[in-house]
Structures are given as structure tokens and as C-alpha cells.
């Protein structure tokens, strides 16, 4: 029987053992200690944030220091960190802190005698050395003397969290700000470089070159068209020529007769002069037509070198006198017409320059590179486009008149401005905020007023001061960390 009792007891014991290890062991939680004194100093592109117990003479206090490289906001991966407390009459001795893990150094020290002191940190890695100095620290002789320090309430965001995410801070400094207004526009030829070719007479047109099509390059003096007379119409070239000949012949006869009569003094000198003048006019008119009549028509030659941009006639077509046969645009100066939306009218008068991109060409050109200048800012809305026209003159080198261009109109740069990157802004209900660093691991959410933007940077009208440190990257991480999410009802 005893054996069985033992057996049962054993079974019972086994059962109990099976469950004994169900008890969970308490989790080891790495609490972030609340420290009484915090030191936060920037130097040489690095940031040190150290926390320690209050400085009471003779007491041993623990210290924990965080060291961050600002460029990529990463913890230092190696190196040594020492510190000392300097007081009047004592340089203090360097004490090295232990490297706990990337970016974190810990240690403890005995606080020296009461008085004002300076805490100096020295970080060395490879052959580089950085020194951080915190002045005017007060060491008290008794705890009771500690003044109740004004505690800055801020949103916590631990450095260890910041290191794990994309994060960056930036000190606010005076900057020059220029807006870039994005709009469309066109590259157009300037009026003075456009030449119109019109037919001087009515007649049948003959195109003199096989390659005379829109876009063809034409040198000065090239024969382009010939207008031939034909049997119809009053403005016919033949009629004109014959009329001129008749007038010429007639005036010649009159002149000869009047010359003879003058010799006889039958007519006055004045009458003779009149007849001579009529003859000269008729002669020149007749000769002008006979020149053109040489090739059996009136020749039209290019007055300049340039591109044919318009061609309104076809071979053997009939044209009236004055008909616009085509346009030649002289190579060289062009205009850029920007069409600024009315919504940006208030900025229009500040425009002084531009960047532009021609359709089909990814390159962005500047006004300077094109030796261009602002011609005019239209203070009216073009009824056809609904836009405000702004004109620039450019060299035109490499540009195609008539093409579309995307433009960025630059406003006059204003100096001494507070400018923040877009990544530092948080938007809520139409209001903008930035996180201002108020301690090594605490931040203040500050409302700012935006004055303008160039797409990448924002001009701050109010809310920030020069010298303040803001979160330039990772602002959202602070926002999320301080607004705990909870699972929505998730369903299958």
C-alpha cells in the first residue's frame, strides 16, 4: 500500500511541477530614470545630453550621458567620454565614463565642495577630440539648499528612440528666402525679330525652293517666291507694267516736247521742270517693274537670315497684293511669356527672375544663363487665358520659339528670415506646428504661421525665434509617440 501511496504522491508532485514553471518571471524593464540634473550642450556637430543626481557636496551621484552625431542623428559607436568639474582654484580631475552601448556612457562621481562650477566633457575617438562645456553649475553643501528648479514640461522623446528612426535637429538661423511660383508659359519670338513676307503685287505665286517648309533655315537674300502676272484682275502685274510703260512713254514725249518748246521759250522753265519730274517718277516706276519683269514676275527675297515660321501659300496659288506669304523669325532674341495664376497675383510684383524648362527637354535653364531679363509684369488678367502675363527677354540659344515651358518665377530674395524645411512641419486642421527642442529629450509643440513656401522650404512669419533648435526630420515620430494608437475593431 505504501508504494501506491508513494506512487500517487509522486504523480501529484509531477502534476504540480508541470505547472510550477507556468509562473511568469517578472520582466526586466529598462526604465528611463528620472534624473534631477540635466545637461544639454552642442559642440562640433555633436550633441551631449547628460543626466545626473543633484550636485550636493560630498555625495556620490550617478551619471548617464548620451552622445549624438548631429549630421545623421546617430549615436557615437565608439570612443571614450570623460568629464571633470572645474571650480575656482581647482581644475578637477578627468574621470572616464563607461561605454554602456552605442551613444550611452555611464558612471558615478563624488561631488566636490560647494560653489559654482563648470562641467567639461571630453569625447575622443580615433584622433578626434570634442569638448563640451556647461557653465555656472551650482554645487550646494546641503540638500535643503537646492532651489526648486523650474521644471520644463515638454513632450518626451527619448534619444534612444530618436536614434532608431530617421531624425534630425536644426538650429534656426537667419536665412535668405526666395519664393518660386510654379506656372506655365510659352517661349515666343519677339516682335522685332519677326519679318513678314507679303506679296507686293497680285499674281500667281511661284515657290522658288523645294525645301521651303515651316522650320526651314533661310539665309539673307535667298529668293523665296516669284509673283507672276496673268490675265485677270486690276492689280495684275502686266497691267501695272503696261500702265507704267504708257505713263513713262507719255511723260517722255511730254518732256521732249517741252524741252523743245523751252528752247523756243514757248513754255516756262517751271513747266519744263514739272514735266521732267513727272518723267523721272514714271521712269522709276516703269524701271521698278521692268526689273521684276526680267524673270517674268516679281521676285521676293528673304530680307534676313532665320527660320521660316509660317507659310500661308502653296505653289501656283493666286495672291492679292499685300497677302501675308509667310514669316521669318530672325535667329536670336526670344521672349518668355509666363502665365501666372490669379491666385498668386499678390506675389507677381515681387517676381524678378525665373527658372524654366522647355517642353521635351528635362534641363532647367536659368534667366542668367540665357542672358535674359524681366521685361514687364502685366498687372491685368489676360481674358483669353485667365492668367497674369509676365514677360522675360532671353538670348534664345537652344530654345524653340512657340513651345510650352514650365516656369518657376523667383520673387525678390528677402534677407534675415526664419526658414524651416518642409520635413519639420506638422499640419493639423490647417494649422502648422514644429517641435522645438527644450531639453535633451523633451520637445515643445509650437504653432507657427507660414508666410510663403518655395516647395522645399517654408518661410515662418511667427512662432519661432533665431537660435531655437527645431526637429528638422522625424517630427511625426514625436507626434506619434505622444499619441498612443489603439487597435480599431479588426475583423475577419
Amino acid at each position, binding site marked *: *500500500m505504501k508504494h*501506491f501511496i508513494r506512487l*500517487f504522491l509522486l*504523480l*501529484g508532485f*509531477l*502534476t*504540480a511541477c*508541470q*505547472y510550477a*514553471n*507556468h509562473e*511568469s*518571471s517578472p*520582466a526586466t*524593464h529598462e526604465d528611463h530614470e528620472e534624473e534631477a540634473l540635466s545637461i544639454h550642450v552642442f559642440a562640433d556637430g555633436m550633441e551631449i545630453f547628460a543626466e545626473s543626481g543633484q550636485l550636493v557636496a560630498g555625495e556620490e551621484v550617478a551619471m548617464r550621458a548620451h552622445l549624438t552625431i548631429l549630421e545623421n542623428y546617430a549615436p557615437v559607436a565608439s570612443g571614450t567620454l570623460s568629464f571633470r568639474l572645474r571650480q575656482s582654484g581647482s581644475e578637477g580631475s578627468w574621470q572616464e565614463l563607461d561605454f554602456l552601448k552605442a551613444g550611452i556612457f555611464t558612471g558615478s562621481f563624488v561631488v566636490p565642495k560647494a560653489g559654482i562650477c563648470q562641467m567639461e566633457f571630453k569625447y575622443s575617438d580615433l584622433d578626434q577630440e570634442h569638448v563640451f562645456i556647461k557653465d555656472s553649475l551650482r554645487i550646494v553643501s546641503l540638500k535643503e539648499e537646492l532651489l526648486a528648479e523650474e521644471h520644463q514640461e515638454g513632450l518626451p*522623446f*527619448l534619444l*534612444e*528612440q530618436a536614434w*532608431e*528612426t*530617421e531624425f534630425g535637429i536644426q538650429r534656426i538661423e537667419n536665412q535668405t528666402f526666395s519664393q518660386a511660383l*510654379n*506656372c*506655365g*508659359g*510659352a517661349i515666343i519670338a519677339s516682335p522685332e525679330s519677326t519679318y513678314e513676307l507679303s506679296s507686293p503685287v497680285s499674281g500667281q505665286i511661284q515657290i522658288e525652293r523645294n525645301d521651303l517648309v515651316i522650320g526651314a533655315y533661310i539665309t539673307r537674300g535667298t529668293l523665296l517666291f516669284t509673283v507672276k502676272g496673268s490675265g485677270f484682275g486690276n492689280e495684275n502685274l502686266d497691267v501695272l507694267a503696261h500702265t507704267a510703260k504708257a505713263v513713262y512713254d507719255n511723260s517722255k514725249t511730254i518732256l521732249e516736247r517741252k524741252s523743245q518748246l523751252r528752247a523756243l521759250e514757248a513754255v516756262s522753265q517751271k513747266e519744263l521742270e514739272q514735266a521732267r519730274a513727272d518723267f523721272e517718277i514714271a521712269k522709276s516706276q516703269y524701271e521698278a517693274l521692268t526689273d521684276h519683269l526680267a524673270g517674268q514676275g516679281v521676285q521676293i527675297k528673304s530680307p534676313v537670315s532665320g527660320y521660316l515660321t509660317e507659310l500661308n501659300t502653296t505653289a501656283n496659288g493666286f495672291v492679292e497684293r499685300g497677302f501675308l506669304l509667310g514669316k521669318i523669325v530672325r535667329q536670336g532674341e526670344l521672349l518668355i511669356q509666363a502665365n501666372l*495664376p*490669379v*491666385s498668386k497675383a499678390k506675389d507677381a510684383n515681387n517676381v524678378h527672375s525665373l527658372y524654366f524648362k522647355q*517642353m521635351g527637354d528635362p534641363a532647367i535653364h536659368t534667366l542668367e544663363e540665357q542672358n535674359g531679363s524681366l521685361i514687364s509684369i502685366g498687372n491685368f*488678367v*489676360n*481674358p*483669353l*487665358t*485667365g*492668367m497674369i502675363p509676365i514677360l522675360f527677354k532671353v538670348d534664345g540659344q537652344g530654345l524653340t520659339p512657340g513651345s*510650352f515651358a*514650365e516656369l518657376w518665377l523667383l520673387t525678390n530674395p528677402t534677407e534675415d528670415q526664419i526658414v524651416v524645411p518642409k520635413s519639420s512641419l506638422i*499640419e493639423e*486642421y*490647417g494649422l502648422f506646428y514644429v517641435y522645438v527642442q527644450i531639453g535633451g529629450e523633451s520637445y515643445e509643440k509650437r504653432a507657427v504661421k507660414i508666410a510663403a*513656401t518655395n516647395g522645399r522650404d517654408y518661410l515662418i512669419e511667427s512662432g519661432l525665434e533665431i537660435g531655437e533648435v527645431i526637429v528638422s526630420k522625424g517630427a*511625426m*515620430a514625436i507626434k*506619434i*509617440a*505622444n*499619441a*498612443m*494608437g*489603439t*487597435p*480599431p*475593431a*479588426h*475583423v*475577419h
Partner: protein
Amino acid sequence: MLQAILKYSLKNRLIIILVVIAISIFGWLTVKNLEVDVFPDLTAPSVAILTECPGMAPEDVERQITFPIETTLNGARDVRRVRSTTVNGFSIVWIDFDWGMDIYKARQIISEKLSLIQEDLPQRAHTPFMAPQSSVMGEIILIAVHSETQDPMVLRTLVDWEITPRLLAVNGVSQVVTIGGDYKEYQILLDPLKMAHFQVSLQDVRQACETMNQNTAGGILNEFGQEYVIRGMAQSANLQDLGSTLLKMNGPAPVILNQVAQVTIGSHLPKVGESYFNGQRSVILTIMKQASGNTVEITADIEKAIAELKLSLPADVIVNDQVFRQSDFIKTSVNNVTRALIEGGVFVVLILFLFLMNGRTTIISLIAIPVSLLITIIIIKLLGYSINTMSLGGMAIAIGLLVDDAIIDVEIVLKRLKENRLKPIEKRKPSLNIVYEASMEIRSSIIHATLIIIVTFIPLFFLSGMEGRMLMPLGITFIVSLLASMIVALTLTPVLCSLLLISEKQLRRPVEGGNFLVRRLNRRYSDLLSRLLSYKKWVIGIPLLLFVGAIIVLTTLGSTFLPKFNEGVLTITSVSTPGISLEECNLLNQQVENKLKEIDGVKLVTRRTGRAENSEHAHGGSNASEIDVPFDLNGRTLEEFFEEVRTELGKIAGLSYVFGQPLSHRIDHMLSGTRAQIAIKIFGPELGKLYDLGTQVGALAKTVPGLVDVNVEQQIDVPQIKIIPNRTLLAQNGISLAEFNEFVRVALGGEKIGEVYEGNRRFAMTLRLDGKYHLELEGIKNALIDSRTQGKVPLSLVSDIVSSGGPVTINRENVQRKLVVSANISGSDLTSVEAELESVIAREVSLPQGYFIEYGGQFESASSATRKILWTSLLAISIIFMILFIEFKQVELAGLILVNLPLALIGGIAAVWISAGSISIPALIGFITLFGIATRNGILLISRYLSLNDQGLSIRESIIKGSTDRLNPILMTAITAALALLPLVLKADRPGNEIQSPMAVVILGGLISSTLLNLFVIPAIYLLVGQRVANKSKKHLHHEL
């Protein structure tokens, strides 16, 4: 009838043996082909209706889509509950039908109703459709497709056009839900500045693009004796071709698409989900099986399909199917339970041999086990159940009991045969007659004992809902196997006895006393008993005190619903602030991934953030991620591992988590519509007020000790950009509101305007403004809208564009808006924590009119199930009493036997107290089983006392002799039953054993107490009441034992 069966069996021994062989072969074949699943089919008849309505804000979706669908379906027949979730651009409505509703009928009803509301839905909404029918445990495998070198768009396209179609072709796969990668589409990105320059309107572009990529039929040409089909081949996948499409003529000059837009291939926007494999962008496929499929087989087929696919996929594309595989869990659990069953069997063999010290009797008794189990499996198959951990558990618990009937039969037959042999030869009866008579002698005991055990299982069949579905197969298997063993004891056992036990050698051994061990045991017991009988009061009093103590302990024990089980995969839902962008959420979750990868035992980390298109499995939005982490415990307990993960992830600010495992997570979800153990549902009309109340309740919940993972469903507004038209300015510009709406929808939101075919692959072609004009607030303000009076004007000129907020997700239940505060329990019991929580909330929270709170979650099911089990247990006990009364014809005796119940309770409660510390549903079932077994021991003792009394022994003599006689079978059956359970108890935390082990613990504890106490307490009580009872029973029971 029993007589006839017995007689027939003994007369046709060969037939019986052949039948048994046939059954064994058939049973074995059945085992081979049986569907194996982790749990019984728990699918509630529920249908999900999904409606996509791209770009619509949650309030609009709720008002225009969710509400009409809900109201139409709420009145449908047999609808138990209507729930819904509305998020940006998506509505899901779940219709839960009453249990037992035929799912096809349910779908038919919904289908009819849906056709009615189609017309009422806004034009922009896609047609509502029912999610494919699939079981709760439908998500059988997660597959991650990733590559070091391939572009996410290439991956997604491969998945959509190569992998998914192949997987859908696998028999039994109902749906493949894909999330992640870049969803390829052809994009026409309009530049409003160029449009202004070329004087092209949005309408011009839409008109030109709508038909630009369609092939047309040009009729038929009959010539040269042939019939030619004439086709216009306008379709192209060439970007240059597409871009050369004419938009309009500006005088003589044509304007083509390329002049005003960029035609390109890009990723579909807005992106609603992303997935990551070990921190690398990937595509994750969730494969759902059809409701009736065999998970293990489908998984094997899927594996085969993947192996085939790998041959044709680029070498640098990796298909990983080890993320989550339900079949692995099934195999492990079923293997574990099977092993527990086999190990239990081995213990039974050892004990039998130890007690019987007789090879033949051991074999005869043992044969009952496999034969009964095979019969059980055949019957289970015929009843339409699958093999799962529950049904296997039923067998594991029964295994110790299966031999009992056979043992009792073998014992008595052997005894009678030996007695017969001792008689003079002329007086000896033929062996067959002896076997028959001996078997007849104990038949009623066997039947009553079996009946009693079956009756104790009555409460199980009153459980409804999921717990019923979960535990019913266990009860059924248990009962069927017991019945099978009873039949075996009435047929095969006598036959084998008649064949194996009649040899001289067998019968030469002494009648009484058995082997050395048994004799020694009997002697010690009879000495102890006779001594203890002098201290009756102590013997009765001490157990009474123990019982009172046990009852006191019982009141301190908590209760849970189902024990936690280890699935080997951790499912973490991480949630950040609603409204956060997908990119920011990814940044945060990358930290989670990094932390997880550093934890010992984590095999890999996959994450799904946001949601998949058209998926029923919807989180809130891009702020929620589901992270699956297969792990090894490496010597830790599950709790320890969870705690480690909790601690590590707790260091990341800005995320909150719910920890679970794939299946338990889904079971929790099925119970309450919420995944946590406790769900406080707050109902009311105003989302803001609901959130206020929720935060208040959440803060209170955090103060209740034992509650962890307290989460208030976020109902804070998510950012919205509202473009409010200025009607006066619109009018001045000649822009109609329809044009304004169209501009916002098409130019900013994007519109699918056609399709592009690359071979058989089909991609959408979408039209919208260039990213600069819809991905940045400044861009939206500058976007140019067509004006009739002056070209184009900036959108900001004719409307107010303001940043505002709106709800993120709107959840509803039974057509009421609701907000859920959820929590889990850690280290405490469900019921007491819940009671505490309820009282705190009732005290502290005052609800405005129209608002009310409901409590749901596991505790809801646990408490209703516990109540049912308690009431039905009382019913069962009265039935047992009735059976006992029929057996003994005396109230006192029946009562005396029921004394075993408290005796069993003592050990059962002690075992729970030592182990889990709280009573779960399986533990309650353990108590039920225990009552049956304990009662049987009582019957054995009392019937023997009566019979000895009958033979003229004094009360005291008959007690001592009777108890000693019965010590052997009682100990043997108790120890076999107990040891058979030992593997389940010792390997309680192995996957699959978790649910049965609390049951086994209770039975083990109860068996120890009831067996030990039964052997002393019942004799002591009988000594008190014996004389009176004996006199009465002489009249009735002279024919019994």
C-alpha cells in the same frame, strides 16, 4: 437481448473473430483517409458583404452604403447579429446567422436581398459582393514572395498573374488575398499647365482616352474562297503609341496626349497596404481554404504547386511558405495527442500486466483498446466528424476506461473457470457455459457503469455556440468509444476468454489472491481497513473536512474559457495613431521588426500593414499592421516568451499592440466580434461622445488589476482635405457643380479609363493629374480646373481647400454605432476580473441618454457555458441516481454510491488548485468524467458487499472481504485510467494537448482522491448503515453479485 448477443457470440466464435478482423482492417483504412483538422469545424454561419467605393470618406460610405445594406439584411430570416466596419473607401457588413443555419441557404437569402438594394447605392460604389465562403480557420497558409533584386512591381505582377492563378487552381483553395508590392497600372498623368497651353480640357482628354485602347470588329470579308474576320487593332501596350493618341485639333494643328500628359507605368494609388518579409518589401499571400477542405492535404497540394511554380519563376524570386502553416500546427497537435494516446496505452499495458501477471488475460483485455478505438473511428466517420485534437482527446481520456469492461469480464470468467476446474469432474460444466454464465453475471454492472459515465456527459450536449461545437466531438468520441468497449466486452472478450483461458495451465493457478504483488497489496489493505474501521468517525470526518476545504478552495478558483495553446506563431497587431501615413507607419514598424529579429527563438518576421484590396480581413487603415512571427520557445514557457516580446516592443513609442496567435486570435474574434478576451462595447449615436466614454472606460479598466493590453478603439478624427466649392466663383467661371465634382473625382482621385493588355495580363489604365497636383496640398490648390470664361483657373480660386478631420473607422453592431474597449487577462481569472471591471464602470461612468454598454468576449461565453454545465450536471446527477436506484432498488445505497462524488471533487479541485489555478471549460468536463468513473468504483464495492451479505457473512466481514476482493479491479481500473492520462498531464504545454490537459489534470486528481477515499470511506459508511440496507436488499438482490 444482451443474452442473445452473448449467446450468439459464443456460438459463432469464428464469425465474431472474422468480424473483428474485418472491422479492424476497415477501421485502419478509415484512419488513413480521415480528414484531419486542428479543431472541429467552428465556422458560424456568417456571410461578409464587401463593397469597395474608392475615395469615399467613412461617413459617406456609412450613410450611403453600409446603412442601406445593414437595414435591408437585418430583417432577414434567422439573422442573429449584423456587424459592420466602414473605413475610407470600403464597407464590410457581416451577417451572423443562427447556429445550425445552412450556409448556402443563408447566402441565397443575402443574394436575393442584395439585388434589391443595388439601385439605392451611389453610382461610384462597386457592386457589393459576398466574400467567398470559408471557415474561421480558413486561412491555412501565408506565403511571402520576396526578392533581393526584383522590383516590388515585378513581384506583385508575378504574384497576380503567375502565382495566384496557379494557387486558385489547387483543389480546396477558395481565395487568395494578396497584399504588398506595387500594383502595376498604366497611368496618364495630366499636366494642367500644358493643358492650359494647348487649350485642352479634362473632358477632351476623357473623351479621347475612353476608347483609345479598344480593338474593334469590322465584320467579315469573303474573298478568295476564304472568310476573313476584319479587326481594328487599336489596342497597344506601347507607351509611345498610347501617348500619340489625338486629343483635339487646334485649328490645323493636332494636339496629342503626350503633349499634355505623361503616359507611364506606375504603382496604383492610393496604396492601401504594404507587406514586409524580414524587413524587406515583399508580397504576402493569404490562402483561404473552402469550408470543407482537408487542411493538411490542401497544404500539401499547395506545396506541390509552389514547387512547380518555382521552376518557372525568376531565380532571384523567393517563395517562402513557412510564415504560417496551419497544417504544421495540425500535424504537431495531432501527433502530440496521438503520442499521448499511445503512451497512455503503454501505461495501461504495464499496469494490466503488473496486476494480472498473466499474458493471456492481459492480451484479452488489451485487445479491447484498439478494437474499440477502430470501431469509434468508423462511427465518427459515419457521423460525419473529422479527426481533430478534440476527438483524439476524447479517445485519449477514454483509453484507460476502454479496458475496464474487458478486465471485469476477464476477471470474472477466469475466476469462474478456475472454480469450475476445482469441482469434481462430473460436476464440471462445459467451459463455454461457464464463460456465458460468468459474462451474464456482470453484464448489468458493465452496462450500468457505462450508462452512468455516458449520462455524466449529458451537460456537454447542452453547450451551444462555439464552445459546444468545440467540445461536442470530444464528448461524442468519448461516449462512442465507451459504447464500443461495452460491445467488445459483451462479444469479443467472452469469445477470446473461451478460446484462451480454458487451458489447464491457465486454470491451475490458485483462484484467490492473484500474483505476489496483488496478494501483498490485498493483505496490507485488509489489515489497514480492519484497523481503520474502528475509527469510523475519523475516516468519515477527515474526508468531510477535506471536502469542505475543497469547496472553500473552489470559491477562490477563477475561471477561464479555453486554456491558451501554443501554435508556434505569434500574431502581433501593432497600431499607431489613425491617420498616419503608410510611410510613417512603415518607419515605426521597421523598429518593431528589428526588435523582434533580435529576440531569441524568432524564426522570421512578416508584416502586413494596411489592408489588401477586397479583403474581408480589414484593419482600420494604414495605421494598423499584423505581424506574424513563427518562433521556437527554446526552453521558455509561452507566457515567458510573450512577456519578453511585450517588454521589447514596449520600448517603441507610438505603437500599441495586441498579442495573440493565429488560431486563438480568430477564435476570440468569433466569440465576440472582437479579438480580446474582454470586450466592452459602448453603443451610441455620436462618434465623438463614444470616444470620450471609451477613453473614460479604458482609463478605468487600466486600474483593474489583472487586465492587460487595454485598448480603446481609436475614434479620433483622421486628417481630411475638404474642398468646399465657392458657388459664386464657380458660376462666374462657368463651372457647374457636376464639373467641379468630376474634377475632384477624376483629376485628383484618378479614374480607371481603360485597360491595357500585355499578352493575357490585364492592367488598368488610369487618368489623373500629375502627382505634383494631387500628392501635395499646395499642388491641389494650384491644380487648374477648366473655366468657360477664361481658360483654366486654379482650384483654390473657386473653392476653399481646408485641412480638417473625419472619423477613421465606423463600427456598428445591429445597426448601432459602437466603440470597443478591449482587454486581455494576465495572471488572473476571467470572471472575477470581469465582475470587478463591471462594478467599477457602473460606479464611475454615467451614460448619457441613448448610450449603453454591453460586455462581451471570452468571459461571456465562459460564464454562460459554466452556468449551463452546472445546471445540466445536476440533471445528470439525478439521472445517475435513478440508474443507481434501478440497480440497487434502494435510496440509501444509491446515495451511498453518490458519496463518491464529493470524494472525487476533493482531488479534482486540489489538482486544479495546484496546476492552472482556474477552472476552464475542459476542467469542468474533467469533473463530469470523473463523476462517472468514481460512481463505478462505488457500484463495484457495494454490489460485492451485498452479495457477500447474501452469502451469510456479517456486515463487517463482508466489508473487509468485499473491499479486499474489489481492491484489485478498483485499483487496476483507476490506475489504468489515471496513467493513461499521465502523458496528457505531463506534456500539457505541447501544442494540441493544451485543451485536454486541464481535463486530464482534474480526472487524475479526482481519481487519486476518490480511489483512495473510496476504499476507506465507503466501507466506513457502509458499516454504519450496512445492517439496515443488507436486510432490505436481501429481498431484492439475491440474484445479483
